[in-house]
């Protein structure tokens, strides 16, 4: 698949952005159908922790079956942004948000939407591997189906095997499924968490710096996995590591102090950034 601009971003508005216009991505028009290939979209998304604003008017379109990387210096709102995509942000005491996030064209923040059901469609992998310590490897993968009551009519053994295979972990743990989920190495634990997320067959997988606690070998395995995951899922990955963004992602968004500075195909962002700020950041001159 040839990589082009994210759907919904037209080059005209890209150009106006360069002249100081902040309306970067075309504002969502409810009259228009979902653009082909778009899985999620944030519209004028703002988020706060108490009085501190963490995200400012983020308009971003996320394409289906692609990897979108969110980069930026610490504290720029990367994690907050992905946590708004599955309504995890609101779980932090004192937090609030405004704006819209569309999943297949429907606002997940509208009143009649149950956030619990959204989280079953938009899965998440965290910075630190967090398998359930009181559960075995098998139970960890099965946890999503068991605890949500979705296991009815499903063959759990099959789901566990398939999820672990998709997470490239099956061969390493197939004889130790009864062992505690915390008994394996950090990299394996992170892949276990990925298996746990995909056991529910979500549509989108959000990854919040999934490799920052791992060594280079384990990181390489997860990156390999991310690239294969996009065949079945839409992946959004937050990363500190620009080489990682360049290696695994199709699209890259650069956030700085809560604002979206630049968004485009990864190739463009890294080879030909339009914003001076982006260029400074990706060449390591700040951040």
């Amino acid at each position, binding site marked *: 698949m040839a990589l082009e601009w994210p759907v919904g971003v037209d080059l005209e508005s890209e150009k106006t952005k360069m002249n100081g216009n902040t309306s970067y991505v075309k504002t969502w028009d409810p009259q228009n159908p979902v653009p082909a290939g778009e899985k999620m979209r944030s519209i004028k998304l703002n988020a706060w922790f108490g009085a501190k604003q963490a995200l400012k008017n983020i308009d971003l379109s996320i394409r289906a079956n692609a990897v979108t990387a969110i980069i930026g210096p610490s504290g720029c709102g990367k994690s907050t942004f992905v946590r708004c995509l*599955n309504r*995890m942000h609101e*779980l932090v*005491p*004192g937090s609030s948000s405004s704006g819209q996030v569309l999943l297949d064209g429907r606002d997940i923040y509208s009143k009649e939407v149950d956030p*619990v*059901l*959204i*989280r*079953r*469609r938009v*899965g*998440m992998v*965290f910075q*630190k591997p*967090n*398998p*359930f*310590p*009181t*559960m*075995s490897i098998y139970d960890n993968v099965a*946890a*999503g189906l*068991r*605890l*949500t009551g979705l296991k009815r009519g499903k063959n759990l053994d099959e789901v566990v095997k398939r999820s672990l295979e998709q997470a490239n972990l099956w061969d390493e743990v197939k004889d130790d499924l009864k062992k*505690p989920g915390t008994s394996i190495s950090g990299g394996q634990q992170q892949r276990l*968490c990925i298996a*746990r*997320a995909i056991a*529910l067959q979500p549509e989108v997988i959000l990854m919040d710096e999934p490799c920052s606690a791992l060594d280079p070998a384990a990181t390489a395995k997860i990156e390999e996995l991310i690239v294969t995951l996009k065949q079945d899922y839409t992946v959004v990955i937050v990363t500190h590591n620009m080489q990682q963004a360049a290696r695994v992602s199709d699209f890259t968004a650069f956030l700085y102090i809560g604002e979206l500075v630049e968004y485009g195909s990864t190739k463009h962002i890294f080879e030909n950034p339009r914003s001076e700020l982006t260029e400074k950041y990706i060449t390591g001159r700040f951040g």
Partner: protein
Amino acid sequence: MTSYAYRKFKDRLFFVLSLGCVIIAVVPLLSILIEVILNGAPELSIKFLTQTAGVIGSPDAGGIGPAIQGTLILIGLTCLIGIPFGVMSGIFLAEHGNNRYLRAYAGLMRIFNNALTGVPSIVVGITVFALVVLTLGHYSPLAGAIALSFIAIPIVARTTEESLKLVPNSLREASLALGVRNWRTTVSVVLPDARKGLVTGALLAVARIAGETAPLLMTILGGQYFFQDFSQPMDALPLRIYRDSFLNYSNFQAQAWGAALVLILIVLSLNIGVRVASRGRLGK
């Protein structure tokens, strides 16, 4: 003295001081234990553990069977009432106490709860006497269990809250991010992780209530017979110890020592038994 030697000396001194304090603190504890074992152990026999007490003043003091039975019934009933209420209150304080609408209410509950921990047990006894015994019109094991629950609930609630707060938030988030409901996250993820703390809290409460005397005086009264029904007075080990030790007959005083030893053994074996039983397959 060089300053290096002085600093090393301070380090040693600190160690010796803390060791010394531990030894001093353990002395009364050990002396109680040794005294009870020395005086109580000769009393132990099948007859002592199963028979009713003899008539006061008679050469045969009999056994403490009814008191053991009564104490076990009280512990059971109190756990039945106290643990669910205590654990649920602890869950509320730890898991929902930060909710922006409930925060003030939870704070108030926490203050009440802490105050309740400090209420003298005789006050609890009078309260339950007025509320339950007078209403029902008779002393009853139920009234005793309710009084003991008043003492157990704040302990269980507090230890539950503390141990739930120790569960890392990342586990809750992992579960919620899978689309698991709040209550299911609490029951299936948070509580199992906090299991050890919950068991400790329940055992602390049992140890505390098993030895309570004052509230029982006003609720179950004590007596000579085995448990009859819920409308009759009942005996319990602390009451037996209390009554026996005031009698001017050496065989009854010996019975009090034996009863004290049995009480300690019951609490100890419950402690060990529950800990072994609650050790999970994947427990730490």
